[in-house]
């Protein structure tokens, strides 16, 4: 009998673990404010039922389709599926979104930010941990709706086109997966409640893999959203440089420095451009300022490399060089 009770307790514990131990009060009313409607369902978000272990490709195809990229999940399998792990890793979903010309914005890890995206009409790719112990049950799904009154959320998940879950249960599985969530934005589109560093990291990833046009659209949107920040100007100037537009690049780096005089990257890059424009004296002045600001920080190595190259050119400025 005692053994029976023990098994019963363990079984109940297991059920509660999977149900996400829903002991908190209503959650969604706290996460929705006057600015966010109490009930949203993104009915036009398509559904791709997953095949074995391939919720990653299916969920990614869902958010990509919602951002205007038509792609079959099967076409994403060779890009994101790892046979040896029977699943997909987050960085590869991010990379595949970039590969389709979309800005893979990783959301700040807060539930109200998830809700805000859906309220703004953008479905959210979320990671969940559904199991425990030797069966962690990592899973990708797409959040497409919520109902604050009923305290429930709606997901495109696995083979369920319209999985309805209690907010508590969903949020517990999401929290256990490290609160990871991503939206795929069209270049130029801003997420709801945007975060500068996260947005710029997503946009700069496009630049880093050579998708310069899409990066440019995102940088321009960032420059409009955060006119008092230097980073979007730095990004636009780097793209001008990549196009071979040295004058435009110089103006952009200069604008970034006007906004943020302590910006090491903008000063380093402006020095390099000044050197190429035939202004070695101005370049030396700029790189010295960059070196002083870089200290032994993360960009020190890159700045030191530029400095030794620029110091080798002892000529004075040619005509038309900047006076500051």
């Amino acid at each position, binding site marked *: 009998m005692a053994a029976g009770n023990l098994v019963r307790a363990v079984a109940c514990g297991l059920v509660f673990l999977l149900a996400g131990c829903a002991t908190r009060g209503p959650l969604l009313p706290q996460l929705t404010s006057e600015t966010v409607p109490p009930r949203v369902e993104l009915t036009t978000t398509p559904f791709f039922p997953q095949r074995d272990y391939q919720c990653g490709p299916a969920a990614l195809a869902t958010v990509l389709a919602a951002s205007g990229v038509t792609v079959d999940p099967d076409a994403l399998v060779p890009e994101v599926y790892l046979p040896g792990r029977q699943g997909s890793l987050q960085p590869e979903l991010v990379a595949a979104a970039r*590969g389709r010309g979309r800005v893979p914005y990783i959301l700040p890890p807060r539930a109200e930010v998830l809700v805000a995206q859906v309220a703004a009409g953008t479905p959210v790719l979320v990671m969940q941990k559904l199991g425990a112990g030797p069966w*962690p049950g990592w899973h990708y799904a797409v959040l497409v709706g919520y109902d604050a009154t009923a305290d429930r959320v709606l997901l495109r998940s696995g083979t369920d086109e319209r999985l309805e879950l209690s907010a508590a249960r969903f949020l517990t599985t999401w929290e256990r997966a490290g609160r990871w969530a991503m939206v795929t934005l069209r270049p130029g589109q801003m997420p709801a409640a945007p975060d500068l560093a996260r947005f710029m990291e997503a946009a700069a990833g496009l630049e880093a893999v050579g998708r310069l046009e899409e990066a440019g659209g995102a940088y321009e949107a960032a420059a409009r959203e955060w006119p008092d920040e230097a980073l979007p100007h730095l990004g636009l100037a*780097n793209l001008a*440089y990549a196009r071979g537009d040295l004058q435009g690049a110089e103006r952009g780096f200069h604008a970034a420095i006007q906004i943020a005089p302590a910006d090491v990257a903008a000063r380093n890059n402006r020095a390099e451009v000044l050197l190429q424009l035939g202004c070695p004296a101005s370049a030396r002045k700029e790189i010295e300022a960059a070196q002083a600001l870089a200290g032994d920080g993360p960009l020190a190595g890159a700045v030191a490399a530029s400095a030794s190259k620029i110091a080798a050119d002892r000529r004075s400025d040619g005509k038309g060089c900047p006076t500051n």
Partner: protein
Amino acid sequence: MFKRSVVYVLCFAVLNLGSPMMANAAMIGTLQAVESSTRAQDLATVNAALAQDQVRQQFAALGVDPAQIDSRVAALTDSELRSLAGQMSGMPAGGDALAVIGIVFIVLLILELTGVIDIFKKA
């Protein structure tokens, strides 16, 4: 003479192919600038080429089609490559929820059939 000049032009063009502007200059990319504000380590000291090799090997070991490995590695940024190289085996791989739910269902079914629990009966 004409042929020779064509060869020279082609040689010059081919040499240029391998040297995009960003590579030969000491420019700091936007991503590097963003990461410098969020990460502490000296980005220049972390060997991106080494990380790329490690990821390539791990992809091969995990059964990625050899024809796909190069393009998958090329799609990743340096910091993504570094984090994958360091912790790919510990990273969560989102796969199938059905397997977990299936296992739990079987456990519950066995408990039900042996009379330990009674959750599938209608009230």
